[in-house]
């Protein structure tokens, strides 16, 4: 079809609307970067300047030299990576079992898990804190990592994907005498690679961005993750717009890069997760 000759004005308007929407959406992010490069107090002007008069990295330098940001960056990376690796393993095993292994009450158990996703995480938080205290995990990395190691959503995602693996393939492997764990490792995992990547991104970003739980469980500032450290910083440096913006840029940048690189997987996974049987 000769779309463009057909409705040039409409096409133009649609694109203009989209560009306007994109500008409005990206403006806060653009402004964040711009202000982070301004010299101190430059943002406290009226009208607010759009671009720094003389870009400077002084705030980034300050974050690393005086405010220990490298340590928080490391903490966040460590925690998010651990949770991602461990949860990928455990969720994929469980998801595969729900999809392909047979046992009594399988579907009922799965539906029960799904239904419990309605329970807000906050309900569990108070006793969970007391429990982790008894285990000696308060104020440790493990206190953040362990409760995130298995997730119902992760199991659900893997199961949805694993359902599409043909049973014949698995049966053939069984006839060849392969054990279940071998099948899982050499056959299922490679086949599930796309969804594993998706789940990895979800988990990594979710853990990276998580705020409430690390806020509660980590009391020692040496262990803080980036969002907690940033909120802490905000309490003291409310007036230093440029410094806070630099901290925000450093917090957001890793997840944005991760998303842009792996967006195909991310968006496919999101759609899969939202499609109900």
């Amino acid at each position, binding site marked *: 079809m000769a779309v463009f000759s057909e409705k040039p004005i409409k096409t133009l308007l649609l694109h203009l609307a989209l560009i306007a929407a994109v500008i409005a959406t990206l403006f806060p992010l653009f402004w964040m970067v711009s202000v982070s490069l301004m010299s101190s107090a430059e943002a406290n002007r009226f009208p607010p300047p759009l671009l720094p008069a003389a870009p400077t990295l002084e705030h980034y330098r300050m974050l690393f030299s005086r405010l220990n940001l490298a340590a928080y960056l490391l903490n966040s990376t460590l925690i998010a990576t651990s949770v991602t690796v461990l949860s990928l393993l455990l969720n994929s095993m469980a998801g595969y079992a729900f999809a392909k292994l047979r046992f009594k009450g399988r579907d009922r158990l799965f539906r029960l898990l799904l239904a419990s996703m309605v329970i807000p995480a906050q309900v569990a938080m108070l006793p969970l804190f007391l429990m982790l205290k008894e285990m000696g995990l308060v104020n440790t990395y493990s206190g953040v990592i362990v409760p995130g190691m298995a997730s119902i959503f992760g199991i659900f995602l893997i199961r949805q994907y694993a359902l599409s693996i043909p049973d014949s393939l698995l049966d053939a492997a069984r006839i060849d005498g392969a054990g279940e764990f071998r099948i899982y490792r050499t056959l299922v995992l490679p086949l599930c690679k796309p969804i594993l990547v998706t789940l990895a991104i979800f988990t990594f970003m979710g853990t990276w961005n998580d705020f409430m739980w690390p806020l509660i469980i980590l*009391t020692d500032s040496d262990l803080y993750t980036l969002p907690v450290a940033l909120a*802490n910083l905000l309490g*003291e440096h409310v007036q230093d717009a440029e410094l806070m913006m630099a901290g925000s840029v450093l917090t957001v940048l890793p997840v944005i890069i991760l998303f842009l690189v792996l967006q195909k997987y991310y968006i496919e996974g999101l759609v899969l997760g939202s499609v109900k049987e």
Partner: protein
Amino acid sequence: MRLIGFLLMPALLGACGGDREKTVLEFWAMGQEGEVVQSLMPEFERLHPELQVKVQQIPWSAAHEKLLTAYAGDAMPDVFQLGNTWIPEFVVLKAVDSLDNRLTAQQREDYFEGIIETNEIDGRLHGLPWYVDTRLLFYRTDILVKAGFSAPPKTWNEWLAAMAAIAALPGGDRYALLLPMNEWQVPVILALQMGSELLRDEARFGNFRSDAFRQAFRFYLDIFRRGYAPAVSEAQIANLYQEFASGYFAMYVTGPWNIVEFEHRLPKSMQGRWATAPMPAPDESYPGVSLAGGASLAIARSSSRKDQAWKLIEFLSEPEQQLAFYRLTGDLPARRSAWLHPDLATATRTQAFKTQLERVVSTPKIPEWERIASKIAHYTEKAVRGELTEEQALAALDKDVDRILEKRRWLLRKRAP
């Protein structure tokens, strides 16, 4: 792999080498104080080479929960700052160590009596005042003069007369006094001035329908009824400093932090036209009492370095350090001797606080106080808005407070069979 090992090696060696014999003290301080106090630490570490202080700064907004979660999670620091109204809670938790054997009688006398008294629970000292605050009157001298008052009011009657005169001044939308109606402090100060006990029977029940509280409450409501104060809450005052400069209100009951703020934020032309004064009294006993506020330093009971921790507290309590801290933050020293220094002795607006600090009393020292205070604020606002009558508000307040204190009554009964 080996390369990384080599790179890390010097760092690791360095970390072990220099600090081997040093004892590390964990010190939590809040907000601006937490940031500023770090600059006092090199001097402390110079005086005590065997000690190293790790200061952790906690925002005020998260301070209370951070301390409690740290307690619950067995992760308390050695020394920490806490608001002096929080001390009863930490005593109930047995989270703070008693300082009775550490503070000498001579040192003790140097502290404002009303303030150090807030740190004493059941006759034992559990914290040492670090800096102090209280509330008193900030006022526009020029407006008071215009209304015919050359000096700040000393009694409630003078205060009312001054408010009436200011309200009668020409020039539209203006009020004599700003009383944010969602704050519990002013009604409580007035009641304490009347000698109200707030709670009765060893703080088993609310005592808000007593004559003393009722009279204070009526005085407070009258200020609104007569139109001397606008019926607004704190959040509705868009820019306090601008409104004070424009003469929207001429008097305001607030704390020492606003000296710094007013000096910074009021226009230059305004600087010679405002002053501070102690609270008026209901009778001739000027100045009237006000609240004993501020922050204290405490040692965690769980600390294994209590003696070293005390050294840090002692250091921060030295008059010179208190002065240095005042210069850095504007926080008022807790020790009288620090106030003799010219820096403070010549600051007239701050000196009013000195006078007031000799006349302060504490609110009931029970863990439930914060909740009770929020109830007072809630019902005061309802009464100001006219949603409840004076009688209904006080009755409801008593009822709610009795409910809050139910557990306390049960515990007291259990303890004394």
